């Protein structure tokens, strides 16, 4: 009964277009004021939660990775990574497109956000592909889709949020994303290669060994960031949050002093833009924590979990239902909100059914990737339409075939847990 009330209040608020963070917080206040034995103590708990909800060092990886991503996007690093990718695979059928996927993969290993990856790689690769004679629609589809690798390949802001909201280890989740990320990149390249062969897309001359070496040397300082972040976390040198802070400082040095893509006087703008994005994320996190406090105090996760057990759902049926629910949610909300609201509800059920929460995290992340290239709220689509100067509808149509590819891939990831769990089980 209370669960239904909470849901109705939340939906009503969301439909007016109230920002998701505000809607979550308002739901809590409304419910407490109208339907519970209201007392000033509850008010104090709410005010306290607004602060203590964020009082965790693990959450602070989010603003650090946002900052490092902002430096990377503008700092001239993407251009070097693209040159290196082109030297490696540019000569194949559909070389430019495959290089774009490879560059997105490289960029994803140093950045934790999908839209940032689309901006960084797409704003250089898209014009290049169209100039080379690739169909515009195909080019936009490839870039927008492979940009979504940003959240699957570690580091990943979405994964940190999942780890924080379910008390799982961010490091373990990062490792779990490596194999699925590489596999997806390979799948996208294979499809591009086959399309390029049948539709006879242009190829580039094979790069000399010297060009490969020179471009590698030029991109080296950017790619080093992978080594610092992943090596640092798994070498036990620092925690994921510290790795994020170090990567922000490193990205700053690379962007301003090594590659000189940014001038020192532009740095305050970068800081402000990163602060804008991360404050928005932290504000959603705060209110989502309030919201899950309300759910927990009304014992809704337990009830839901019990209900699923009573239905005697088998794990595979639960996973079907979960994916359908997440894809539906992906039609209306962006990834961090979905994960913050749903992960705390879903993880207890998954545990009951014997599904590993780390595997669930990867499934949810792949699911969010689909939401990002699917209208109406796919963030990647907005970014791509902005850089391609194409309408949102046209970009969405361009991505549609790729949505089906990702759906098929989601089925694979969902039902073959070993792809996600093999590497973390080996390392932990």
């Amino acid at each position, binding site marked *: 009964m209370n669960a239904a009330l909470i849901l109705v209040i939340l939906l009503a608020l969301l439909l007016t277009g109230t920002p998701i963070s505000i809607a979550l917080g308002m739901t809590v206040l409304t419910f407490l004021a109208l339907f519970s034995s209201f007392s000033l103590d509850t008010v104090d708990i709410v005010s306290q939660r607004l602060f203590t909800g964020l009082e965790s060092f693990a959450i602070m990886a989010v603003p650090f990775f946002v900052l490092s991503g902002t430096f990377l996007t503008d700092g001239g690093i993407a251009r070097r990574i693209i040159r290196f990718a082109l030297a490696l695979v540019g000569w194949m059928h559909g070389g430019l497109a495959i290089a774009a996927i490879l560059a997105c993969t490289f960029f994803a290993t140093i950045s934790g956000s999908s839209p940032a990856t689309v901006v960084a790689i797409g704003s250089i690769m898209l014009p290049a592909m169209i100039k080379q004679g690739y169909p515009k629609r195909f080019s936009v589809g490839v870039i927008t889709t492979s940009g979504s690798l940003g959240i699957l390949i570690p580091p990943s802001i979405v994964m940190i949020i999942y780890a924080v909201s379910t008390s799982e280890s961010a490091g373990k989740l990062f490792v779990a994303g490596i194999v699925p990320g590489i596999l997806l990149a390979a799948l996208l390249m294979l499809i591009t290669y086959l399309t390029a062969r049948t539709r006879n897309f242009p190829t580039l001359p094979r790069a000399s060994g010297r060009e490969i070496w020179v471009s590698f040397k030029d991109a080296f300082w950017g790619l080093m960031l992978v080594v610092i972040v992943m090596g640092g976390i798994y070498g036990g040198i620092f925690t994921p949050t510290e790795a994020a802070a170090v990567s922000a400082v490193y990205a700053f040095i690379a962007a301003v002093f090594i590659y000189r893509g*940014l001038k020192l006087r532009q740095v305050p703008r970068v800081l402000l833009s990163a602060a804008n994005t991360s404050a928005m994320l932290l504000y959603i996190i705060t209110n989502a924590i309030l919201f899950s406090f309300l759910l927990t105090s009304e014992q809704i996760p337990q009830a839901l979990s019990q209900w699923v057990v009573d239905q005697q759902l088998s794990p595979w049926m639960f996973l079907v239902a979960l994916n359908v629910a997440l894809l539906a949610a992906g039609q209306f909300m962006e990834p961090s909100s979905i994960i913050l609201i749903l992960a705390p509800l879903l993880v207890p059920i998954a545990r009951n059914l014997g599904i590993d929460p780390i595997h669930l995290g990867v499934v949810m992340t792949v699911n969010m990737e689909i939401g990002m290239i699917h209208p109406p709220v796919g963030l990647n689509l907005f970014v791509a339409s902005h850089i391609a100067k194409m309408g949102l509808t046209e970009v969405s149509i361009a991505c549609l075939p790729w949505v089906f590819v990702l759906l098929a891939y989601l089925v694979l990831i969902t039902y073959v847990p070993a792809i996600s769990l093999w590497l973390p089980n080996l390392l932990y």
Partner: protein
Amino acid sequence: MIRAFNRALDHVEEWLIAGFMAAATLVIFAAVLHRQSAAVPWLWQYAAAFNFSWAQELCIYLFIWMAKFGAAYGVRTGIHLGVDVLVNAVRPNIRRSLIVAALSFGAFFTGAIAVMGVRWVWFIHGTGQTSPDLEMPMWVVYLCIPLGSSLMCYRFLQVLTRFLRCGELPVHTLGAGAEETA
């Protein structure tokens, strides 16, 4: 007069959040360097002169302050996303009232939080609590809730009046935030 006040407020807000961001990053970077340098033979004796045990706490406080004021800045830049399926589907006059409702909810919620925050800060002030590592008075630390939330409320009211007057809403180019810097 009001215009000058608003412009000053905009500047203070921007410098505060960019400053918090930079400070938090440098603090954690320094703490990591400090810890690693303790393992270097000729460095550790210099490193030992400093104590960075408070770094994590400071970083968390800086980021929470950044989050509270940054959320207010976000209202101004239109970065707080909502679900716009219904809003975009209905007739213009209904759309207008939905948007006014959404903005009023924003102003009401942040206003309510500001009032609750004042109550909470007052209570903490009475207990005389200090933070574990920095030993800062906790009521000062908690001040970010009433201050940030009332600033956010002010921003919602600003956006609301501008919308009522000329029908404009701040629009953020999603994820392309990087371009602002170029």
